């Protein structure tokens, strides 16, 4: 906590400063609330409206967690199978990169047409944005295995399974976490986008309702909610990483 106080004050100060400038200018130029509400107004809406949107948060968090877990599992499974079967990697790697060039906004309505308004199309959207960072960084981690260590394992008579679980997997773990951090923040965005398509609950729904009724203050509330959720997920992943990877020299990667 002390460390956070020491390091954390700079970004906090910058954010506070930005809010102050925003507040002052919107008061000074009398900008109408439907165009750009002042931070104080957004805060007020956020506090007063808690009862009206808190069920949306719960729904989005649930969707994000389910989507994130499925997306990450898919990513890790893809990385493992592409790593263990080199022919598969040659055949599928370009496809995986192409999958990231599909504009989600265009694909999402199609998914609704194909799979209806249930969970499935939403999970597919989140999986599509989540699996890629993990798959790519895990694959990298598997390939960055130390040659000397691999020779040692081979000469000691280790089979492919032992080499994977005792050497390549633990070696890739920090890389996997790098991917998880990116995916964790993407997954919240993915969940919100998937809720735009058609859902009866969720921050995405709240956001579309707010913007179509020109309640810009509510739009900003939902934007801040997305930010807070992303940061929260990010922090959880970092905590997980710290508890799982204790062998890194201190000061490296912090």
């Amino acid at each position, binding site marked *: 906590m002390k460390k956070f106080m020491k390091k954390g004050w700079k970004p906090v100060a910058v954010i506070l400063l930005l809010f102050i400038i925003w507040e002052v200018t919107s008061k000074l130029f009398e900008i109408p609330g439907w165009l750009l509400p002042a931070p104080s107004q957004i805060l007020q809406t956020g506090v007063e409206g808690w009862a009206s949107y808190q069920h949306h948060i719960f729904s989005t968090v649930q969707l994000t967690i389910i989507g994130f877990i499925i997306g990450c599992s898919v990513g890790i499974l893809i990385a493992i199978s592409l790593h263990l079967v080199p022919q598969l990697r040659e055949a599928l790697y370009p496809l995986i990169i192409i999958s990231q060039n599909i504009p989600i906004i265009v694909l999402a309505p199609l998914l609704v047409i194909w799979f209806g308004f249930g969970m499935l199309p939403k999970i597919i959207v989140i999986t599509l944005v989540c699996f890629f960072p993990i798959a790519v960084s895990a694959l990298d981690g598997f390939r960055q295995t*130390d040659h*000397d*260590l691999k*020779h*040692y*394992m*081979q*000469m*000691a*008579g*280790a089979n492919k399974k*032992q080499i994977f679980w*005792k*050497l390549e997997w*633990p*070696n890739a*773990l920090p890389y996997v976490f790098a991917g998880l951090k990116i995916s964790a923040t993407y997954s919240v965005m993915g969940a919100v986008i998937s809720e735009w398509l058609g859902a009866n609950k969720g921050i995405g729904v709240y956001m579309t309702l707010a913007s179509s009724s020109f309640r810009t203050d509510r739009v900003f509330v939902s934007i801040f909610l997305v930010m807070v959720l992303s940061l929260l997920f990010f922090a959880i992943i970092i905590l997980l990483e710290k508890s799982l*990877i*204790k*062998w*890194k*020299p201190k000061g490296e990667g912090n």
Partner: protein
Amino acid sequence: MGNLAVKDITKSYGDHNILHGVNFTVNDGEFVSILGPSGSGKSTLFHLIGGIRLPDSGEIFLEDKQINGQKGSISYTPQSPSLMPWRTVLKNVLLGGEIVGKHDEKRALALIERAGLQGYENAYPHELSGGMKQRVAFVRSLLSPQPLICLDEPFSALDEFTRLEMQKWLMSIWQENKRSILFVTHNIDEAIFLSDRVIVLSQKPATVKREFTIPFERPRHESILLTEEFLDWKKAIYRELSEDV
């Protein structure tokens, strides 16, 4: 137990002839060094004995069984200590046995203590010095079930003082355990000081130029490093090595 015979091994990569008719043996409980100019195919030799490469021709026998291309028959320590950074000292040391399904924590702890590493059982490799890492790697070799230990220039990255300490330590441990050791180095002093026999390799393509049997009695004391006799051996080996160049 632990006798190795390398017979007429030839290996090339593409047009590069690396090893050409290499012959030598390591007897049971013997300490043999291979000395050669850098790039003379010493690492290739280990890859062949370790079974991760196949020789173009020739045979390798361990305990009278042919082990061409058979992994898991020797205990190998690469040039860098090659400890797994995510394993503690104790877990690293147990790795060799773990691969073949054996687990002897008691002996591991005893050997860690003998290596002067007590208190570091649960430390991670990044917390150790270079010399300590090498000791851990060697304890791992001793705990591995294979009869022959192959060490690939284990002390090349250490400074002169640590190196002498490590050489003395290695000899004392070896004398207690009497495992066969095949030791690759490009340091003449180190080879003479440690070995029962020194095998000199030629430049590429490598063949065995000569074998020297080092007669110093064991246990050896570092004072022999400065004797006339030691210097004579050094001269003889040096001459053999420099004829190539």
